[in-house]
């Protein structure tokens, strides 16, 4: 049997019952489509998490207040709600720990912000100019505040690009404009450059004000939400982290390091945690989509078994005339592979489309990788072979006489 004969037989068989072929294929389309779309969502999340972490700055240690933990318990919630870190702690770190680059204490809170007629609720960070270096912040227009602003408790603010877009008309020069935070007027000094974040931890949707200004007018307490520290040399990260821990334990009078009232996190830990979370997320989404692909495959098998039963007499005749087992099994295998492969092609396009729609209308970051497309084609063909194999074998093994007598 020539290859072109198999193709022709397949074409005839699949077009004879278009509705059934179409519906069976739909199962594969949905399966492959959801695999493509879900993996795109997962990988999009992974990429945006990674780029956001990269944008925070490398060689970064973050010290956050945490409730005192008793050993064996893993409670460490309430950032900013504990009063364990103070400005003096930050000063002591800067003074006593060697090999540090910059030290930037900060406080944070969410406040109502009004400018002209617009108003929004956004996160306000009170910090020192060193924060710029620590967090890789650059200025798009205007300038950042200086230590002098901090010393004078000037009511000045630097806003993120999202805040600017929210509060001011497009194209308007914002430096020198007034904004009202928690009912207090601040003068805008400049706008930071976009880092392209999204979601809860968006570094574009932030307002920066001098630390002492924030303490006096906004938070009203001396406690610090975070101390960000850069370490001069990547190699020194662990040593610096240990030195800071020792210093703070001593300053806070804590003997047992397991009951520390602060947490020190470094960039590597965060990257690791975040990427392990998004990896699990991708895997989970992929697994859910994989199940629908499996269901699609079972649909193929079901259809092929029905077809083999319906065409028993025809198979008997073909075998009686002289078709070999492999002629018959190839014919049926080719049908199921054609179904899954076509389903795979349509599914890839559909999945790609779904990912694009999710990005456009759902604001979800997605990334369709070439590997997942190639994989989808491969998987769909393999599914055709796996789920078509049993029906094809059954057809090939029919006894011609019994098959010819089949009613």
């Amino acid at each position: 049997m020539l290859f072109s004969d198999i193709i022709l037989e397949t074409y005839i068989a699949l077009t004879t019952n278009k509705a059934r072929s179409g519906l069976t294929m739909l199962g594969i389309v949905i399966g492959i489509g959801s695999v493509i779309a879900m993996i795109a969502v997962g990988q999009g999340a992974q990429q945006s998490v990674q780029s956001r972490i990269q944008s925070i700055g490398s060689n970064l240690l973050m010290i956050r207040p945490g409730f005192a933990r008793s050993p064996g318990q893993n409670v460490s919630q309430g950032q900013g709600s504990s009063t364990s870190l103070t400005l003096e702690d930050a000063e002591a770190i800067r003074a006593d720990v060697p090999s540090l680059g910059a030290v930037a204490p900060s406080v944070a809170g969410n406040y109502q912000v009004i400018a002209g007629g617009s108003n929004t609720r956004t996160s306000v960070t009170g910090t020192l100019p060193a924060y710029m270096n620590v967090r890789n912040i650059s200025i798009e227009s205007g300038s950042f505040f200086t230590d002098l602003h901090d010393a004078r408790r000037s009511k000045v603010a630097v806003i993120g690009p999202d805040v600017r877009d929210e509060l001011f008309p497009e194209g308007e020069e914002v430096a020198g404009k007034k904004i009202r935070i928690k009912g207090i007027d601040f003068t805008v000094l400049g706008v930071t450059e976009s880092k392209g974040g999204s979601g809860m931890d968006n570094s574009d949707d932030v307002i920066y004000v001098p630390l002492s200004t924030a303490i006096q007018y906004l938070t009203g307490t001396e406690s610090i939400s975070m101390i960000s520290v850069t370490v001069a040399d990547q190699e020194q990260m662990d040593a610096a982290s240990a030195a800071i821990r020792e210093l703070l334990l001593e300053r806070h009078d804590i003997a047992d390091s397991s009951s520390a009232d602060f947490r020190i996190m470094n960039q590597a830990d965060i990257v690791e945690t975040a990427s392990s979370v998004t990896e699990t997320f991708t895997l989970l989404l992929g697994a859910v989509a994989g199940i629908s692909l499996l269901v699609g495959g079972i649909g193929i098998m079901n259809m092929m078994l029905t077809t083999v039963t319906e065409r028993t007499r025809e198979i008997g005749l073909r075998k009686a005339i002289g078709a070999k087992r492999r002629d018959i099994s190839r014919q049926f295998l080719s049908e199921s592979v054609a179904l899954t492969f076509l389903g795979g092609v349509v599914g890839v396009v559909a999945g790609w489309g779904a990912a694009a729609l999710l990005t456009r209308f759902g604001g979800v970051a997605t990334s369709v990788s070439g590997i997942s497309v190639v994989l989808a084609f491969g998987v769909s063909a393999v599914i055709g072979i796996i789920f078509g194999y049993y029906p094809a074998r059954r057809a090939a093994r029919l006894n011609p006489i019994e098959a010819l007598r089949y009613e």
Partner: protein
Amino acid sequence: MIECRNLSKIYRNGDNETVALSGATFSVVDGEFLAIMGPSGSGKSTLMNILGLLDSPSGGRYILDGKDISKYSEDELADIRIRKIGFVFQSFNLLPRTSVIRNVMLPLVYEGVPRSGRRALAEAALRAVEFPEDRWEHLSNQLSGGQMQRVAIARALVNNPSLVFADEPTGNLDTKTGERVMAALRKLNREKGHTIILITHESEIAGYADRIITIRDGGIVSDLQNTAVHTV
């Protein structure tokens, strides 16, 4: 060359045993035109299936062209069928929803005949059975019984088999068309030297053959040379 020794076939369905064939011993030389006669249920189709390598006997030996067929695998038997044997089944067994010409070309597909050569062979076979040319592209399920029968015969002849089995080939034809079909088989036998094994229960039709074997209840009751062969 066909040699059968003590061929038997027993069908088992649970506790039920049907002896369809028992102790059939005979041989057929190349180029013979043989008719197998017998009443309904006597085992004619069963014998044809065994001789045509579609079924295996429950007992006895069947030697085709000097080789014991019990030694062959299923695919090897299929290979012999496609090269040497043509079948006209009692119930035609055409592919449904498929054109007449494609039905006739089917054996050529499995024989591996190139696409370009198939149509001419199929057309020649259809002309040989006088199948009307304007219906070549009709679907097989749009034909009359007699037309289906002729398509089935054309399909059996298309790969030029040296051994042709015809199970009641004239069963659905009027006398005149039946005679023409028999004449075509006769011609195939006389001019090309093909061995023909014809199954019928009509002595009129059996009269075209050189030799007539009669079976009853699975056993051979007579094996005679036909002295008064029909001349066409």
